[in-house]
């Protein structure tokens, strides 16, 4: 079953360019997300990969109405997402934040924080809440005896796991994780990722994962979307993308990052220049042109869009040379 279906999602910000030009009505638009499509099935793990600033966080935040998108259609379980009440939507789709360890209210015991989420979304009858809290804490490796403690009594990794337990307490069908382990030690990262994958399998959750870390993307995903400047430039099965990358940007990303797979051998491609300011991006042509080793005059004006690559199983790429 398709859980989340995103179609043509755009999120533009108006940039304040100073007092005077504001008076003259000159506004500039930052196209953080500029028309992306993807879908996630129950039990599927989908990862949005890209450098920081490519709009991947904005994409999921506006897909799930944490921000109001500028344009686009989002369907959740086949129904327009606008039809859901805030409470119902948050009960179905939970977000795990970048700084998840700071998402716990410092003045509320961790047990109370989880219980509050369970009660608010009426997950179980009131008399079972306590047992459910203990159960969830155990699943993320925290002793239920510690549930009366406030968050300050726990380490960063423990808080992260408690916050994940709280997100799961709601019993969502979709979990959205935005770089949930970026601030943690590598060993703790692995621990949490494994825990997350186990839980995802156990509950049959859909998972949307956002990261710039290709190693993590490969480890946890079934499908991957590679984002560049607000667009998905390559989309497909995790193995297809890692073993046969098509878009020059994906190729460059992969060559720049050591991927723990010695079977894959490729030349290092070095990208020239930095990612341009998304404000200055032209509507026409391929946004990757300034840094692309294969760019031609044609690329500057071409009509862009994801197209199936040689009719391969759902492997899509946004490059006129493929």
């Amino acid at each position, binding site marked *: 079953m398709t859980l989340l279906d995103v179609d043509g999602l755009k999120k533009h910000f108006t940039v304040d360019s100073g007092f005077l030009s504001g008076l003259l009505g000159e506004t500039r638009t930052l196209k953080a997300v500029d028309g992306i499509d993807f879908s996630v099935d129950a039990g599927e793990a989908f990862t949005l990969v890209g450098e920081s600033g490519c709009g991947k966080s904005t994409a999921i935040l506006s897909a799930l109405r*944490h921000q109001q998108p500028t344009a686009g259609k989002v369907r959740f379980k086949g129904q327009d997402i606008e039809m859901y009440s*805030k*409470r*119902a*939507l*948050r*009960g179905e789709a*939970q*977000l795990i*934040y970048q*700084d998840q360890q*700071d*998402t*716990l*209210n*410092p*003045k*509320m*015991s961790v*047990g*109370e924080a989880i*219980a*509050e*989420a369970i*009660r*608010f*979304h009426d997950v179980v009858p*009131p008399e079972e*809440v*306590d047992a459910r*809290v203990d159960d969830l804490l155990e699943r993320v490796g925290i002793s239920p005896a510690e*549930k*009366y403690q406030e968050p*300050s*009594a726990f380490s960063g990794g423990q808080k992260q796991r408690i*916050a994940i337990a*709280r997100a799961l307490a*709601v019993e969502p069908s979709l979990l959205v994780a935005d770089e949930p382990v970026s601030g943690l030690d590598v060993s703790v990262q692995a621990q949490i990722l494994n825990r997350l994958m186990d839980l995802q399998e156990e509950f049959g959750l859909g998972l949307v994962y956002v990261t710039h870390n290709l190693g993590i993307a490969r480890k946890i995903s079934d499908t991957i979307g590679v984002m560049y400047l607000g667009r998905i430039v390559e989309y497909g099965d995790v193995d297809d993308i890692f073993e046969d990358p098509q878009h020059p940007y994906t190729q460059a990303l992969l060559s720049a990052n050591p991927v723990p797979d010695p079977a894959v051998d490729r030349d290092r491609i070095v990208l020239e220049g930095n990612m341009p300011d998304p404000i200055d991006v032209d509507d026409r042509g391929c946004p990757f042109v300034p840094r692309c080793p294969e760019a031609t005059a044609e690329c500057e004006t071409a009509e862009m869009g994801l197209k199936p690559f040689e009719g391969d199983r759902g492997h899509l790429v946004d490059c006129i040379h493929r």
Partner: protein
Amino acid sequence: MSQESADATVTERPRQSRAVAGATRVWRIVSANSLSLVGFCIVLSLVFVAVFAPVLAPYEPSAQQLDNTLAPPSADHPFGTDNTGRDILSRIIFGTRYAIAIAVVVVTLETVVGVSLGLVAGYYRGKVDETVMRGLDVLVSLPPLLLAMVIVTTFGINIWNAMLAIGIVYIPMMSRTVRSSALSIREETYVQAAEGLGYDSKRVMLKHILPNSVPPIVVLGTTDVAYALIDVATLSFLGLGIQPPKPSWGAMANAAREYILVTPWPIVFPTLAIAIAVLGFNLLGMGLRETLLYGEDYDEVVE
């Protein structure tokens, strides 16, 4: 409503151990600083005296001894007697009840109205915030005592109008403090996360923002009680607040003013009582400010 009451029972520790833990916590915060410790002792004694006034007072506060007026301090009347021969010590002891009543009225109005306004303004921001804050700016532009005078002029001079007027005029400062605290707390990740869990605005404000803005509320509330005591005493001294023969300290000082040439005691003791009560709340407030808002050792104290 049922959900809220359930909140308190399911995952919390048993009530008794919570009360003990709470008291221990209060004691640790208060005793962290010598100023707040002294202040706390003064305030606690005031409450004690107010509660047990009938037991502690040697005489009825209104019992007149017309053959023994304006007497200087003596063994029978440690603080002397006033112009109708009433025992000044007993009247001062009963006067603590007015001081505590003023504290209760001010704290109640500040927390119920002031905190709610500040929370709403800081949480919703934008137009709501603008409107609330502009309204409060107007109240702030008038000194509390003057606004209280206007209120008693239009609504009549009596104890309730005086206490309510003083309570009302302290609302704006509290709202401003809570607002600025709410403005920064609502940007915290844990508040964003609470909204991410779908919680309604009432829950986010009351269970997630409010508990985290308690320190400035406690500090300001304590200091404001001190100022309110001064203002009510001043109003009463001017004959605009609590009226004689009620044994309020301000009213006693007012009544004794006429006899200042004859004997100073009827005016000295009530005014000292006012100063000590105000000092108690001021010391407590200042000490708490150091501990709760600036203290480098705050974490050690509280955790």
